[in-house]
């Protein structure tokens, strides 16, 4: 079924690579100090940091994963946006950015150091650094595998070329280069996916036609079937959705993950920093139409016109019979194959390779030419995800680990050099991680599980840190440790229905509770971790000595002057923007109820 990209498709991709490298090359001369390299000299206008804030998160996981989720769960996936990302983005812009930007912290872990203490920062910095390098490796592996499967490209070649290009432009132009390329990638994805959605919807006779063909009525609604977890394909009930995804996980990601927060920290003023996530929220809430709809369409689209493996497009007859590649698949989503090339079965049903939903849409609906643009958008999203991880890693490594624990008094030039070295080193480790993922899938699964445990309680620490001046360093550190432990224990005592004990949970011997789905279990793990961290932080803080108020100026809500916005028109102020975002997001929730 492999399409054969023509010279025109390769030309599109090569032109894109040339622009990416060119941006890095031109920016090289602006990188004079470490602040230029790690923080873009805090000089980027809000609309650019806003689009970069959105794009840094728009990696493989988003484009491929949301398509896959759309094929599996339908428009319910939009909850990741309309109840997940959007409220959290509004919160970080309005309430948290004053402390991130105002404290002049250069990274999220550094804020923890200023607010709490060294050990809290160390815990966060080290876990974050390890996490970014590995997740960058995982996305590299995903890209290599996808391009190999879809186009027959060489796995090693795909990984090496993308890693070298990302290395070149982040090495040369630092954060600015990453941000500029993220903005470029944003437009590429929009331009590449609009025609995909248009053609896909046209093929299935619009939204109404799509709805009529879905396997399950619940797939056409985002909330209607959430009163009971068994009624909807996600297996999640509304409380777990709102608290687990909407509150704990989304706020934890958008408000504390340095990968995205770093973009806002590079903004050229406090107002610009606060507007960054709000500007990002406008396109973000319409992204479900670009990334989820293709997955949904893939599940119902007709595959009859797709060519078979190894057949040149030009040799395919106009109306070929159903391609053998899709026997047992659904729509144009192929099944997964076992080592012998037979479709994989579980409980007598074919296991579908949902991750191929969106890529198959590109192959199905794009002729050579536009196919190049679509592939380019896909590759761009992989690469800018990688670049985002790399720039976040080199900053945390240089400022929060190297400068804090290894070499405290070097010259600025030395730290700039170290940042470049960390870029090479970080990407090198990511490539190694990609090969580990290829050979030993389980190791990476274990690591990702551990990272999920570490991340789950984070938002409680930041919330208490920013809004309760009594919270202490010991409290924060104890809270983080006990929250992480609570996540591990909860996961160990519960299991999603139908899974054997092991990585999916139940590893502590007895299973106390069965969840209807893995997603429900994840949401509840997060809820337990958050609550434990919150309580432990409060209790330990009350028994330890608080810091004097004057040390907390600029770090805690009650001790900080409210940011003033003089001389701005109303639509340039964060608050009216936030109101507009919330109203629009609520409208979308109602429309797709």
């Amino acid at each position, binding site marked *: 079924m492999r399409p054969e990209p023509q010279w025109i498709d390769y030309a599109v991709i090569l032109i894109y690579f040339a622009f990416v490298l*060119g*941006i890095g090359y031109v920016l090289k001369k602006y990188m004079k100090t470490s602040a230029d390299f790690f923080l873009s000299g805090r000089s*980027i206008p809000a609309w650019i940091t806003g689009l970069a804030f959105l794009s840094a998160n728009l990696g493989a996981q988003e484009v491929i994963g949301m398509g896959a989720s759309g094929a599996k769960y339908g428009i319910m996936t939009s909850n990741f946006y309309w109840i997940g990302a959007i409220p959290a983005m509004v919160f970080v812009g309005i309430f948290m950015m004053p402390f991130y930007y105002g404290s002049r912290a250069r990274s999220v872990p550094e804020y923890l150091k200023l607010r709490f203490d060294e050990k809290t920062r160390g815990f966060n910095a080290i876990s974050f650094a390890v996490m970014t390098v590995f997740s960058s490796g995982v996305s590299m592996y995903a890209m290599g595998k996808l391009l190999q499967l879809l186009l027959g490209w060489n796995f090693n070649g795909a990984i090496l070329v993308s890693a070298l290009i990302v290395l070149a432009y982040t090495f040369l132009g630092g954060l600015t280069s990453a941000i*500029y390329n993220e*903005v470029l990638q944003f437009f590429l994805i929009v331009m590449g996916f609009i025609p995909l959605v248009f053609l896909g919807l046209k093929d299935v006779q619009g939204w109404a036609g799509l709805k009529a063909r879905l396997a399950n009525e619940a797939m056409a609604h985002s909330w209607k079937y959430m009163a009971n977890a068994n009624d909807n394909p996600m297996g999640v009930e509304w409380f777990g959705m709102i608290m687990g995804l909407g509150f704990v996980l989304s706020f934890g990601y958008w408000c504390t993950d340095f990968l995205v927060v770093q973009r806002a920290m590079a903004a050229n003023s406090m107002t610009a920093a606060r507007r960054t996530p709000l500007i990002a929220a406008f396109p973000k809430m319409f992204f479900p139409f670009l990334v989820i709809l293709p997955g949904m369409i893939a599940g119902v689209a007709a595959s009859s016109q797709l060519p078979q493996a190894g057949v040149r*497009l030009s040799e395919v007859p106009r109306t070929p019979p159903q391609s053998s590649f899709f026997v047992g698949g659904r729509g144009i989503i192929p099944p997964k194959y076992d080592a012998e090339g037979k479709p994989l079965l579980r409980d007598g049903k074919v296991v579908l390779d949902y991750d191929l939903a969106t890529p198959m849409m590109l192959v199905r*609906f794009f*002729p050579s*030419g*536009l196919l190049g643009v679509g592939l380019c958008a896909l590759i761009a999203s992989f690469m800018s995800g990688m670049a985002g991880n790399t720039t976040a890693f080199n900053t945390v490594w240089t400022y929060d680990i190297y400068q804090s624990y290894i070499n405290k008094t070097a010259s600025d030039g030395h730290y700039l050099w170290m940042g470049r070295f960390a870029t090479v080193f970080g990407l090198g480790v990511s490539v190694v991680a990609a090969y580990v993922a290829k050979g030993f899938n389980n190791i990476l699964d274990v690591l990702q599980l551990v990272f999920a445990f570490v991340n789950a309680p984070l938002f409680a620490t930041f919330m208490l840190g920013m809004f309760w001046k009594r919270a202490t360093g010991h409290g924060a550190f104890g809270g983080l440790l006990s929250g992480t432990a609570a996540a591990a224990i909860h996961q160990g005592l519960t299991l999603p229905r139908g899974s054997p004990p092991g990585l999916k949970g139940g590893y502590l011997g007895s299973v106390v509770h069965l969840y209807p789905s893995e997603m429900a279990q994840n949401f509840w793990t997060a809820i337990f971790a958050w609550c434990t961290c919150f309580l432990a932080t409060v209790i330990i803080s009350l028994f330890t000595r608080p810091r004097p108020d004057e040390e907390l100026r600029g770090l805690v809500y009650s001790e900080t002057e409210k940011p003033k916005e003089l001389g701005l028109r109303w639509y340039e102020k964060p608050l009216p923007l936030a109101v507009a975002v919330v109203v629009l997001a609520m409208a979308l929730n109602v429309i797709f109820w």
Partner: protein
Amino acid sequence: MGFDIRMPIGALFSVLGLLLSIYGAITRGSEIYALHSLGLNVNLWWGLVMLFFGVGMLSLTRLRGTRSADSRNSASQESTERR
């Protein structure tokens, strides 16, 4: 910092749009459109859209360059008038 990002964005989409629309014009009536894009010559049409977008971005770069110079001029005029 650096240069106006709209320049490379505009340039990239102008080049890609031009390339695609020319390719679309050459391959008019080709079976690849019947096979993939429901008979629509999407290369030609979407290529033109991308070209317009790219040129629009480029012209914004030029406009902003002159406008910021203008506003600087008018600001300095105002201040001299006030004096």
